[in-house]
């Protein structure tokens, strides 16, 4: 359940932004969760609900999963990350440190480990709405 740590990061960032923008209440926070990291949305949601501060009492957290798109830097081939092909242990390693994908996955076309995670890595804040 290291989703908790990521939720703390979300709350801390949102609070900082609220401070900076002078928001009294945060209305909505849109979060994108990349599939590569296999974060469990329910756990993330639960953690967020537990970590809520005053300004975040009424906040609606929306979460959207993004597919993990990989692109080979050698042959330009693009493909999607497929968790099902991996062992439990490998999937877990990628869950903690998504870059470790370079240790376990190669370009299906040319075999290179030199690819770019173009989309779908980790947790991102897409937008934050608040009232002043």
């Amino acid at each position, binding site marked *: *359940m*290291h989703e908790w740590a*990521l939720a703390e*990061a979300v709350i801390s*960032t949102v609070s900082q932004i609220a401070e900076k923008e002078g928001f009294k209440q945060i209305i909505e926070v849109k979060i994108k969760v990349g599939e590569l990291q296999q974060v469990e949305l329910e756990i993330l949601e639960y953690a967020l609900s537990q970590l809520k501060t005053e300004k975040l009492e009424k906040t609606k957290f929306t979460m959207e999963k993004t597919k993990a798109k990989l692109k080979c830097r050698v042959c330009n081939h693009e493909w999607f990350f497929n968790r099902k092909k991996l062992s439990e242990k490998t999937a877990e*390693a990628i869950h903690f440190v998504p870059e*470790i994908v370079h240790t376990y996955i190669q370009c299906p076309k040319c075999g290179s480990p030199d690819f770019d995670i173009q989309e779908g890595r*980790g947790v991102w804040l897409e937008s934050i709405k608040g009232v002043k």
Partner: protein
Amino acid sequence: MIDPRISIIDSRLKKVNNIIAVSSGKGGVGKSLVASTLALTLAKRDYKVGLFDLDFTSPSTHLILGIRETWPKEEKGIVPPEVYGLKYMSIIYYSGNKPSPLRGTEISNALVELLAITRWENLDFLVIDMPPGIGDATLDLLRLVKDIKFLIVTTSSRLAFETVKKLAILLKKLEIKIIGVIENMKMDDSDFIKDQIEEFGLSFLGKIPFDNRIEKVIGNVDMLLATVFAKKIRDIAPHLEKL
């Protein structure tokens, strides 16, 4: 899109009193051996100590300590396991013995991830074993970790020392604390490096002799701590206790 991880790093390290990057610019000067032995030495003196291997493409400290079959706990983040009295964190938990061909952006991203999710909690010292070069890992620590202090390792060779000078110039310019410089693998008794270091306004922390029996103690902490190498590190440790 905002990366939420950056803002939490500060609070993850809040209860760490001293964060010490064992660094050099040059590879193969003994950074990993110094970092490991220093962390063990401080732990023996009853400090709470963490060791974080940041050399993601060629990690070594797990070999020096002889670590096997430990794994971090998952508990509201990652809690580094305790090995030989140290809270120990390395990418090898995730990469195993397999190659991890990582570009700089990936090293940077993995580093941010680990800083954001690792719960070091209370530590007197967090010793960081740095990769060679002045690249993403060094620049990210400078960017993300407040009050980071550098412990610089060199050998007597000009090839190492010229690189170390570059690192020192950079850190001085950025007004980053340099604890001092260790001259490792010393073969003679010359004061050449010591004099240059002091002329440069840095503390010279000591000379560690070349010891060709060191290889035999790789992987055995008790034997490592019985070497001349470890004795010299014990002589240097008080410089850190004073920080």
